[in-house]
């Protein structure tokens, strides 16, 4: 192990001298924390707050349209009226009332309200459920007015609204409603996961390729350092580089952006240790597989970006369609992001991330073994 540590120390020292590596290690993560976090924070999506809903109400829609809108506002929609058709068509979500809405409803003619949301998934379902609830409430009010022998007018409906309910149905979620992480809550863990992968797949792999192409590994083969010690040293060097990246990202998140890691910090550290270890194995594998430095960097950047996107590093996976959420389970950054969201944003117990940690370490072992078999001096 003495020789392995010697190789690891030398590798780390060498990598830390490269300007490119330093830029990706210490500068770019902070830039991405800020920009991605700001962009995410500005999006109108389901968060803990109100959802903006654009509406289009023709002049002849009547008072029942106002009633529906009133109940939508009660259910955490923030109603906006678009000034132009174009603005309305580009809004999401948006609700369109038909002409003669009130007249058709009171006359028993079928009429259609159009709710459009560009995104699919849970957020869309939630919006639809709230819109239905508002419409059904108005219809119930009309039924109650009819039963009480009152004409359906704004005044009669308002009066009915004041009458205490003989029967009230209270519905509440069985568990705590999950707040999808947005803004910095998403960008700091996401970019930390992505940059660890990028740094180890690019700097980690290209250094190894460079050493091979320049004959340094071949020369090392003639020293008393065994193949096993050399491979182990290369892996440890990358692992330490990953740990430096993670520690810096966590510290920068806390100090510069006041990011709270929550009460599960030890488990978060264990998850990130597993992620760093897997990235070190992947970097070693790429370094053993690529033939040129350009190939290592090209494959590294491309793979890291695609895997990070699929794994939910760029945006919360919870807002994506269900098939994308299914893909997340297949990619390593997805395992890590899922664990981090559970531990940081959803306040789940530490035990919820145990399967993720086990999978990360198992994958580290498998990829590391494959890389060790592929390792060649020349």
């Amino acid at each position, binding site marked *: 192990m003495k020789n392995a540590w*010697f190789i690891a120390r030398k590798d780390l020292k060498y990598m830390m*001298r490269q300007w490119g590596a330093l830029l990706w290690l210490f500068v770019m993560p902070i830039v991405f924390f800020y920009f991605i976090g700001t962009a995410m924070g500005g999006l109108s999506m389901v968060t803990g707050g109100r959802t903006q809903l654009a509406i289009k109400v023709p002049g002849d829609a009547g008072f029942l349209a106002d009633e529906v809108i009133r109940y939508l506002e009660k259910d955490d929609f923030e109603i906006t009226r678009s000034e132009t058709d174009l603005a309305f068509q580009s809004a999401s979500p948006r609700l369109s009332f038909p002409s003669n809405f009130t007249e058709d409803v009171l006359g028993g003619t079928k009429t259609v309200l159009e709710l459009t949301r560009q995104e699919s998934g849970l957020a869309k379902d939630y919006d639809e459920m709230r819109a239905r609830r508002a419409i059904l409430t108005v219809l119930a009010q009309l039924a109650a007015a009819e039963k009480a022998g009152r004409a359906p007018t704004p005044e009669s409906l308002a009066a009915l609204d004041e009458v205490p309910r003989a029967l009230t149905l209270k519905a509440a979620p069985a568990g705590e409603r999950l707040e999808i992480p947005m803004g910095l809550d998403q960008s700091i863990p996401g970019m930390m996961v992505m940059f660890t992968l990028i740094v180890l797949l690019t700097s980690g792999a290209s250094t190894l390729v460079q050493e091979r192409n*320049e*004959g*340094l590994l071949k*020369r090392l*083969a*003639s*020293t008393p*350092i065994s193949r096993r010690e050399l491979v182990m040293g290369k892996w440890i060097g990358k692992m330490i580089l990953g740990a430096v990246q993670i520690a810096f990202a966590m510290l920068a998140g806390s100090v510069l952006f006041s990011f709270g890691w929550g009460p599960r910090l030890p488990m978060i550290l264990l998850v990130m240790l597993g992620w760093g270890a897997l990235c070190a194995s992947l970097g070693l594998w790429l370094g053993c597989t690529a033939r040129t430095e350009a190939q290592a960097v090209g494959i590294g950047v491309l793979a890291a970006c695609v895997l990070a996107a699929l794994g939910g590093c760029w945006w919360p996976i919870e807002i994506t369609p269900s098939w994308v959420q299914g893909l997340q389970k297949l990619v390593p950054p997805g395992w890590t992001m899922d664990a981090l969201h559970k531990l940081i944003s959803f306040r789940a117990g530490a035990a919820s991330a145990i399967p993720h940690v086990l999978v990360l370490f198992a994958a580290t072992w498998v990829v590391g073994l494959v890389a060790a078999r592929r390792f060649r001096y020349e």
Partner: protein
Amino acid sequence: MIEVERLRKSYGSFVAVDDVSFTVQPGKIFGLLGPNGAGKSTAIGCISGLLQPTEGRVRVNGYDVVKEGKAAKQGLGVVPQELSLYEDVSATENLLFWGAAYGMRGSELKGRTHDVLTYTGLLDRAEEPVKNYSGGMKRRINFGCAIMHRPKVLLLDEPTVGVDPQSRVRLFEMVKEQVAHGTSVLYTTHYMQEAELLCDELAIFDHGKLIADGTLEDLRGMVGEKDILRLAGNFDAEKARAALTPLPDVQVVTAESDRIRLSVADASRRLPELFEAITRAGGEVRETTLSQPSLETLFLKLTGKELRR
């Protein structure tokens, strides 16, 4: 000391080194000569532990390179053909790294680094990145990295490729100084002149086989007194071969298109006879080159190829 016994290295059906044996004694320089692809680098790879021999045995300082790899490599220094250096860091850091790779630490490592920098003449530029060095300086530090741990055996794989004459002379001096301290040196080269100048013993490699070996005197004896004569002109090489072969003391070494190489005793006196034989075969000689007996002559005779023009 290096002992190579019946070494064979094959890749599938391709045999890179075939049944090669030789010994490099302490305090001697043993030269390996051969064209590209002859098997020299494969043999070096097997000795340095980079490659596993298919058959045979290699011992360095008495240790089997396969079974006692660590002990064998501890006494081995390798100067590779390519400049295997960390170019972004200084000469000092390169020496510290390669010394530490052989287990040197602390004051011993620092002291030896200073000594090697002085020895290679690079002390005044020791802290500069190696990438700023000239080709000759890089070759010297490449050599320095190999002797950091005071090895008893040195493998030099074409160490003077691309080196200016001044640095080449300094490298030769350094090699000789190591030998004077009892180091065994295995030296591969393309350059016949280097081999003649440096080596106590030589082995000629071709197609993975050792086709001749011995001291310089032994090999010169094999060349004999015959000259190498190159003839070119308007003739068919095969017809010329047929016309020349029956002549006494004339050996056709190579014959291709309109040129032919002969090994001829006392060639200058026999030129008219040779020209006449070619004329009788319907040809005409336009160009003649005569070489005195040398190692190059032997190489040409044995392999039918020139080592390096």
